[in-house]
Structure formats: C-alpha cells, structure tokens
C-alpha cells in the first residue's frame, strides 16, 4: 500500500520537470559564485589554510552542502497548509493510514525522483567541475545524512502543522526557520569559522545536525568517536521531534473533530 502512495508521489513530481532543471541551474550558479567568493577570501588570507580548510576542502564542503540541500529540500509544509485550508486533511483521516504516515511516504516517493534528476546530476557536476574529494567514512556519512534528512523533515512537518494553529499563512514561520537555519546549520559557512562561544550556543539548536554533522564526517573533521557522538545527538534530536510531532498531531486531530470535520 505504501508502495502505491510512493509511486503516486513519484508520478506527481514528474509534472514539475521545469523545477528540476531550475534547481540544477540555481545550484550551479551558487557553486560558481561561491568559487569566486572563496577564491577572494583565500587570497585575502596570508595562509593557505583557514580554520583548518584549504581552498579545495572548502569547495568540497560547499558542493556537498549543495548536494545535501537538494536531498532535504521540501515543499511538504505548503502541501499541509493547503490540505488544512481546503479541508483535504479531514478526508485524509478516512484513509487506512494516518495522515503523517501518508505525508512521509509521498515525500519519500517525490525524493526518489528528485534524487535521480537533481541530486545525481549535482554529484556529477561536483565531481567533474569542483573535483570534490571522497568522503572519509562513507557508511557513517550515509547514516548521518539520512538522520539529518529525517530531522529536517520533522521540522518541515511541524511548520506545516502551524497552519492549524495560526489560521493564517505559514510563509513567515517557514522563512524564519530557513534563515535561522542558514546561520546556524553550517550550510553556508562551516561552523568552524564561528568563535568558539557562539559555535557552542549554535549547537544547542537542531539545525547543525542537518548540515554540520554529516559535512564534518564527510570532510574528515570528525574522528570516529566524534562521528558516533554526532550521530547519537542526531538520534536524540530525531526522537525529540518525533515526540513533539506526536503531541502536535494529536492536538490537531482533536481540533478537527471538535469542529466536526
């Protein structure tokens, strides 16, 4: 049954071919501009190593960050918002599986397609043009990236559920989340560039477990023990979010029944 849901999502996503193309164009543009930005930054520095990064390892970091971005990128919150406003969510409750599970599998179905048409081309572009180095520990990296994906997906889902409580638009909440994420996740600039005190504060937030941890494992900044430590924290965050989601969803359900939907 879940297979059908995923298949359906896969086919729906096919309708948005132009957005795949644009994602690749925009990501490539970002890689090009970052190449010049970091060239200028390394030229401005007296040493060839900045906070433990050479220019090459920095470009690997940026390229892998762009790839992770293509994996976690999601529009799910808008679909939930739409379902809430159009009342589709009540119809979703008559289905044989719960709405969050349904959302999860549609998301996975769409991801399989976007992995084929966005992520794989981005990996190839990164290998051929940026000449990125390979991950230090591919198994730990894959585990970490999947956990990061799930943590991000929980945050996306919670953002979508905001539509229940606000009644208005989720746009502002989504944007706030994205921009706080930009500063604190290490997706734009490695957290190693931050002063130690700020870095410690940032790691209290969940965002660094989406980018900073998998990226640090990829470029070998984490030792084996540190990697396991990072992954454990990812699991803890994921459990926390699963718990919050469970509570939030139950409250939403109550709200639907109260209004008689």
């Amino acid at each position: 049954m879940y297979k059908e849901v995923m298949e359906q999502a896969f086919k729906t996503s096919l309708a948005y071919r132009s957005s795949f193309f644009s994602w690749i164009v925009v990501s490539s543009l970002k890689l090009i501009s970052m190449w010049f930005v970091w060239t200028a930054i390394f030229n401005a520095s007296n040493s060839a190593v900045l906070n433990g990064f050479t220019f090459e390892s920095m470009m690997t970091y940026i390229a892998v960050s762009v790839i992770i971005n293509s994996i976690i990128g999601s529009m799910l919150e808008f679909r939930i918002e739409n379902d809430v406003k159009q009342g589709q969510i009540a119809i979703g409750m008559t289905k044989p599986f719960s709405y969050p599970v349904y959302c999860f599998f549609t998301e996975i179905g769409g991801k399989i397609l976007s992995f084929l048409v966005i992520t794989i081309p981005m990996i190839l572009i990164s290998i051929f043009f940026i000449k990125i180095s390979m991950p230090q520990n591919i198994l730990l990296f894959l585990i970490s990236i999947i956990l990061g994906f799930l943590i991000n997906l929980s945050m996306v889902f919670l953002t979508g559920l905001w539509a229940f409580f606000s009644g208005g638009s989720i746009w502002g909440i989504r944007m706030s989340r994205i921009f706080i994420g930009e500063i604190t996740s290490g997706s734009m600039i490695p957290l190693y560039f931050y002063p130690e005190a700020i870095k410690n504060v940032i790691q209290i937030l969940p965002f660094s477990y989406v980018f900073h941890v998998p990226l640090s494992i990829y470029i070998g900044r984490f030792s084996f023990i540190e990697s396991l430590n990072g992954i454990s924290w990812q699991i803890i965050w994921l459990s926390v979010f699963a718990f919050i989601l469970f509570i939030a969803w139950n409250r939403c359900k109550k709200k639907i029944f109260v209004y008689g939907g």
Partner: protein
Amino acid sequence: MLNIIKEYYKCNIARFAEYRADFFIGITAITLSNVAAMVLFWVIFQAIPNINGWNFWEVVFMLGIMDLSIGIWHVFLSGVTPWKLERLFQNGELDRIILYPINPLLHLFIKNLDDDGIGDFLSGILILAVSSMNINVVWSISKISILLIMVLSGAAIFTSIALIMTAIGFWTIRTQWMSDLLWAMTDIVQFPLNIYNPAIRFVFTFMIPFGFLSFYPAQMFIGSGEYLTYSYMTPIVAIMLMLISYRFWKFGLKNYTSVGH
C-alpha cells in the same frame, strides 16, 4: 487616477490590519533574512581583514543599499512577479484585470501592496546607519538626496528585471523557476562585484544589471572612485530598463490576449 490609488491603498492597509499576526511574523522573517546575510559576512570577516579591498562594514553598507531598494520594490511594486503570475493565470484574475479601464500593470501594482517589505526597509535603514558610522560616511542633505536617487533607481532596476522575467511567463506559463533564479542572482550581488571574473561582472553590469543594486551605487559613498562612472550611470540604467521592460511586458500581454483569452 490618484483617487483609485488612494482607495486601493486603503483596502491594502485594511487587509494588513486583518491579519496582524501574519504582519509581524512576515516582517520578522524578512528582517531575519537580511540579518542572516550580515551575520554570514561577519563570520567570514572573522577570518580575513578585507575581501578584494573591501572591509566588513563596506560590504554591509552595499547590502544596506540593496535592502532599501528591494524594500521599496517589496512594498509597492511586488504585485507582478514570476511566482504571482502563475496564480494570476490559474484563477483567471489576469483576464479580469485586462478588462478594467485602468492600465493592467498599474492595477496589479496598486492592488497588491506587501507589508512584509517593511522588514526589508527597516533592516536596510538599520544596516546603513550602523555601517556608515563605522566607515565615516556622514549624512549631509546632498548625500541623502544622492542615496534617495540611488535607492529609487535600484528599486526600478529590480522591478524591471522582475517584470521581464514575469513577462517571459506569458510564453512559458510555468514561472516558478524564474523566481528561484531571481533570488539566486541577488545573492550573487551581495558580494562586491569586483571579486568575480570579468564575464560575471559583464553580465551583472550590462545584461542583468544587478550590480546597480548594491556595488555601483555604494561607490558614491565609499571606495577610491574607480567605479564612479558606473555609479553616475545608475539612474540612466534604471530609466532605460523601465522603458525596455514595460515594452516587453506589453508585448507579452498582447501575446497572451491574442491566443484567445
């Protein structure tokens, strides 16, 4: 005509008052987006004293000018954008707009004020105020007038490019991808234009002149005067682009109506 504008603006303000929570969340989100850019610059400049001759406050100063221009666009002129055109097609609103005895473009502008842009505007003023204190830009009456001309020109340039990209949508129908492209380009010109290679500089000076949003106008106040010729060109570029984009918009609209809508 002025009466119509006044009435529409009244309706817009009533709309903002209706969704007060959205109003504050929206402004917070936009302010966060601009502060995020500033924080990322700050982190970069922890590692190096300057980038191609520009120090932190000078780069932030350029950002502030761009935020002001985009703020004006966002509040008053963001009614016609690639991401809004797709909706205008779908719900048939465009067909209605064409029938009114008022210029469709003007109509769309005055109908769709966006209060979120106040966030751009406020953070722009804040960023300019703080940065100019740190680089000894003293605001005299003449300098404020120059700033005003530059910011208005920047708003006109951004609006014109957005308008051209929107009008392309009359042929492609799907326009979402052009909005991604638009924002990706503004990200690129957040950095001083002279860190890029000649080809990119050429594109952002003569083809998609977003250099006139931040880098060139800022040269009126900072820098050695190397790019002053370009700075003086800013209002001329704005006027030229307005004429070109308006013609292109009309051409696109004519194409839209002639296919039988």
